[in-house]
């Protein structure tokens, strides 16, 4: 039904998040029609993001070419407050609220045994090292307001207890079961502002 290259493209597109077989087919046929320059621009963008984007050595946000990320490199950010998120894309969501002036730590996921993710698979050890080395005084647990995010927050709160830092959790009020990235700036801003002390 398809030529082998077309089949391969549809298969690859279908592996992307949120793209089902129908959409993959639609995008593939669209790409067939566009001028070669447009297709090359897309493929270049994919290659260069893979080649030039790395994770920040300190906070695991996205960064360019092995450097620190923009937030870590910015001296004007408060150095003593850390906002712990699951993914770099959550950093984008929190930045959009303009409510937070500290730095971040992206765990690279949440506790999720079903997907084989335990504490070892997350950047938790690195977080603990940063608490001591950077003289952190407050850690805001900004994991997603769903079961896995809450479990991760609770786990971290217990782990952080002996360090004597203030541990807070963003306020409820975000849609339960949802993801930070879908929350609007206002709601997320209010959730940050209304954060509460966590009792481990």
């Amino acid at each position, binding site marked *: 039904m398809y030529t082998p290259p077309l089949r391969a493209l549809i298969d690859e597109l279908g592996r992307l998040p949120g793209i*089902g077989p129908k959409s993959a087919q639609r995008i593939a046929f669209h790409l067939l029609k566009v001028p070669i320059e447009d297709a090359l621009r897309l493929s270049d963008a994919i290659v260069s993001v893979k080649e030039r984007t790395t994770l920040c050595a300190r906070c695991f946000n996205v960064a360019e070419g092995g450097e620190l990320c923009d937030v870590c490199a910015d001296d004007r950010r408060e150095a003593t407050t850390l906002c712990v998120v699951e993914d770099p894309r959550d950093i984008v969501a929190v930045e959009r609220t303009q409510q937070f002036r500290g730095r971040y730590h992206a765990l690279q996921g949440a506790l999720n045994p079903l997907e084989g993710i*335990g504490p070892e698979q997350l950047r938790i050890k690195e977080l603990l090292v940063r608490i001591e080395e950077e003289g952190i005084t407050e850690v805001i647990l900004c994991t997603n307001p769903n079961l896995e995010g809450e479990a991760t927050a609770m786990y971290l709160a*217990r782990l952080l207890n002996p360090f004597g830092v203030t541990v807070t959790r963003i306020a409820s009020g975000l849609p339960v079961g949802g993801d930070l990235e879908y929350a609007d700036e206002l709601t997320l801003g209010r959730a940050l502002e209304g954060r509460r002390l966590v009792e481990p």
Partner: protein
Amino acid sequence: MSLLHLYLQDFRLFVAARFDPDPVGTTVITGPNGTGKTTLLEAVAYLGTQRSFRGAPREAMIRAGGERAVIRAELVRDGLPLLVEAELAAVGKSRAQVNRQAVRTRRDLADAVPVTIFSPEDLGIVQGGPARRRDLLDDALRMLDPKAGAVLDEVERVLRQRAALLRQAGGHLRPDVASTLEVWDDRLADAGGALAEARQNLTEDLEPRVVESYRILAGAGPAVSSVADATSVGVTYRRGWDGPLAVALSAARADDLRRAVSTVGPHRDDLDLELGGRDARVQASQGEQRCLALALRLAVHRLATERLGAAPILLLDDVFSELDPDRSRALVHELPPGQTLLTTAVPLPDGVSVATVFDVRSITGGQQNPRPL
């Protein structure tokens, strides 16, 4: 609450079909066996409960050769149009939308399309395992109490996470397993305790209605057995643990690790059913059991009608063929008025005023040659 149009795509034998029931009264669905009468009810019930009331796995509801089945319903609720869509996938995630908004949890659908189903398989509520009785309670909770519905979803998810963790632990309580297990146990203790309480409250609300319904159903027609007169009907929710769930969970931890299953929690609870002081599951006649199963369904339906302010869509799948005429009449008499879809293989009891008769072959054209939309 009123279902105006139902559209099916690759759902069981339907390639593409549309069904327009009477919006307020009773629609009788006719046709020979195997032409899809029950399937229409199954599709409506799926919207409300996200499962097959025939106990079929999701794949079985997808037409052979199809990748996914689609159920789309146009309803009216409180004068407002409601569009509910569900997509059943053979592989990957099944999805649902209400008014084009993705719904994340089953409760959102139960809330959008409240349904009550009566079917001959309901006998299994009394005769079968505890899961059937928990399903009865949980379906009712999803329909009646959005908060409890959210708790149910959380319990299910925590149990799956906990099971995965126990399997990965391989019987050993390593420190990393212990510390994460504690977190999941906390969530399970909270949500599981809340669920048991919600089920218990629901059971207390249902019991007087079950007693009343059983009296009416068993009292109609020939006595179901010698103890029928001595009916004291008892409906009691039974937790599988004593005291706080958190304590029970930590007491069971070693056992859970060794067996790699969660041995304590609301997923092991049961609803005890008694007739005349005896366990109805094993010590009642089949006639008594059938009456009790109907009484349980009827009790939920009446409670839902009171709480929601209108009767859920009533689905009666071949119920009358299992009941004598007097009991059939008694059941019909006790049902609050509302939209009803029914299939039957026997003449209808008096008291059912039929608004529309719908021959399912008009949309399937028999099994082989379905008419496209």
